């Protein structure tokens, strides 16, 4: 049987400086870049897809959390956005980008969220319904469907029961998987090969249509002739060390940047393209999130069941999405309070615990990504507005109510100044607490907006088709293009927009 990475070139294949040309070069193989490359290849363009990280196959995945964090994530997973607090944020480095390690939640942005983009951010062509065809196409390619009951497990079902008891709507999460076995290992990579990450769902189609896929190639800049992009330059880099080995130069009349919203604006700044109005890198938006750990008397065995198999969209228009959470126990243990024997007791009671999370669209919070004075990693700032922290606090209260309705005896809210754990009778302590960025550790893996779309070239970086305003032949196809929050998990919207952009590239030729 063929392997999804057949034909993909890796570090050991690059033996000398590389000089290539193509119709189009796509930088970054995450959900955005891989979809764009696939669509371009399907439409007959000669495409080169370059990815800084290596390809990870099922045999390469390690269940040990720390090993995954150091091998598959940028900055060994220590990346933080800094502002009025520290906000951990994770970006993957590998063929498939974030889809390699994410929970595979694939959900369309609600029409009202897209209408909000249109009205508030000057993207009238992106209103409700405008992405339906692109959504349907990527759902097909990625095998998106609701999580089946057979692989739910008690961790997901207990959330559903709690929601049902309170009259809160909830549903099985739609996910991009084929034959998910509910092993709950999405974060460390699907060893079952069930997750349809971008390297599995798109890369084989790129290769089979004659496209070239180069991993371990880091793009440093876009080549230009005046305001026209003419290709990219960079280096072959050794996996895990980043050591530069050979020069890379690729000529192409079309350059699609999809290096993720933290990297794309920096490539643009280094290249002097798309930066004339100073907006590239600004307007970083995120979905900060928090979790409660619900403690039950009965066995949950949270180690099994689809990673995030159930969610609730009930409070979406109030700014929050509720989900069942899962990740490696070593990472979730960070949410347990204290240390010493009390911490050990929490650890051995892991099998009776279920973590639930809330994230907010955080409409009042914003940040920026800038180049560091030295080194390749960006400097990322973010300010979590008190109003958005308040929304998270409300979310924690609702999650706790769901847990109690499902029979939890206590919850760990993880808020400085609020006892850990609290019982149902003590919920008012969480409700009445003062919660700002500093009382919690809010993480945000949904990040977007740094090269936002808009019709006005004075306050946006690209148009509604991902074409960079002040450059020709240069497009963006990652979450950086989002003008605002999609209200839900961003991957499917990123892929739909990337497909739309690729259609435009083909039409523009």
């Amino acid at each position: 049987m063929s392997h999804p990475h057949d034909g993909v070139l890796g570090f050991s294949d690059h033996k000398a400086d590389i000089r290539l040309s193509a119709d189009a070069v796509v930088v970054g193989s995450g959900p955005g870049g891989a979809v764009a490359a696939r669509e371009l290849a399907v439409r007959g363009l000669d495409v080169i897809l370059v990815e800084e990280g290596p390809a990870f196959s099922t045999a390469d995945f390690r269940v040990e959390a720390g090993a995954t964090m150091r091998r598959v994530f940028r900055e060994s997973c220590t990346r933080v956005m800094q502002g009025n607090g520290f906000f951990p944020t994770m970006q993957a480095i590998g063929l498939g980008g974030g889809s390699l390690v994410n929970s595979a939640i694939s959900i369309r942005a609600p029409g009202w969220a897209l209408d909000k983009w249109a009205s508030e951010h000057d993207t009238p062509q992106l209103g409700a319904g405008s992405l339906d065809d692109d959504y349907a196409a990527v759902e097909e390619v990625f095998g998106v469907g609701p999580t089946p009951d057979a692989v739910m497990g008690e961790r997901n079902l207990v959330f559903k029961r709690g929601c049902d008891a309170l009259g809160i709507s909830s549903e099985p999460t739609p996910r991009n998987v084929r034959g998910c076995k509910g092993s709950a290992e999405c974060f460390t990579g699907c060893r079952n090969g069930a997750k349809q990450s971008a390297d599995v769902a798109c890369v084989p189609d790129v290769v089979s249509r004659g496209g070239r896929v180069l991993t371990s190639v880091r793009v440093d800049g876009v080549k230009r002739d005046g305001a026209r992009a003419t290709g990219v330059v960079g280096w072959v880099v050794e996996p895990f060390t980043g050591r530069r080995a050979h020069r890379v130069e690729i000529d192409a009349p079309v350059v699609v940047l999809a290096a993720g919203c933290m990297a794309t604006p920096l490539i643009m700044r280094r290249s002097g393209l798309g930066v004339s109005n100073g907006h590239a890198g600004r307007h970083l938006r995120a979905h900060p999130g928090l979790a409660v750990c619900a403690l039950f008397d009965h066995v949950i065995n949270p180690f099994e069941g689809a990673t995030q198999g159930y969610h609730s969209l009930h409070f979406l228009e109030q700014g929050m999405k509720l989900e069942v959470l899962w990740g490696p126990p070593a990472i979730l243990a960070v949410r347990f309070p204290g240390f010493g024997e009390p911490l050990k007791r929490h650890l051995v009671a892991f099998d009776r615990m279920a973590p639930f999370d809330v994230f907010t669209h955080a409409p009042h919070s914003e940040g920026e990504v800038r180049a560091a004075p030295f080194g390749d990693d960006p400097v990322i700032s973010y300010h979590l507005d008190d109003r958005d922290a308040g929304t998270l606090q409300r979310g924690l209260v609702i999650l706790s109510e769901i847990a109690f309705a499902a029979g939890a005896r206590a919850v760990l809210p993880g808020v400085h100044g609020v006892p850990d754990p609290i019982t149902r009778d003590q919920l008012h302590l969480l409700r009445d607490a003062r919660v700002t960025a500093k009382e919690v550790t809010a993480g945000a893996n949904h990040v977007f907006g740094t090269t936002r779309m808009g019709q006005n070239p004075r306050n946006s970086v690209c148009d509604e088709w991902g074409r960079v305003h002040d450059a020709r032949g240069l497009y963006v196809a990652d979450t950086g293009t989002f003008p605002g929050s999609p209200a839900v998990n961003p991957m499917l919207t990123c892929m739909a927009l990337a497909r739309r952009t690729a259609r435009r590239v083909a039409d523009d030729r």
Partner: protein
Amino acid sequence: MLTSIEQRVVVAASDAMFPRGGAIAQSGSDAGVLAYFEGMLGEMSPKNRALVRLLLVFIQLAPPVFFLRAPFTWQGDEARVATLESLATSEIYFLRITFQSLRTLISIAYLADADVAAQVGAAPNLSPFEGRA
């Protein structure tokens, strides 16, 4: 890779966070936290390595600077526990974040030990629902 003083901080902190006995038999030392740290640093970029080492130095020096206590590794077991408690519950946000960072790294190292992971119940199972009705 770590200096001897940094090694002592790792051992002291991991044994204060995970003392021997109780709900899980192994201490931080028993679970090989120090060896894990050395391996981890070897796999990190120079920048991240420097940050982790800075964290360890900070833990060593925070007690005299913030709590008028002896440096962390000079303290006895009870005083170390008290120091960690002070960091964890401090009104100074940065100290709480420092504690969390240290605890995160040590927890990851502790749970990387197969025996500890087994006691937590986290045995990998690729197909947990196979054969169930």
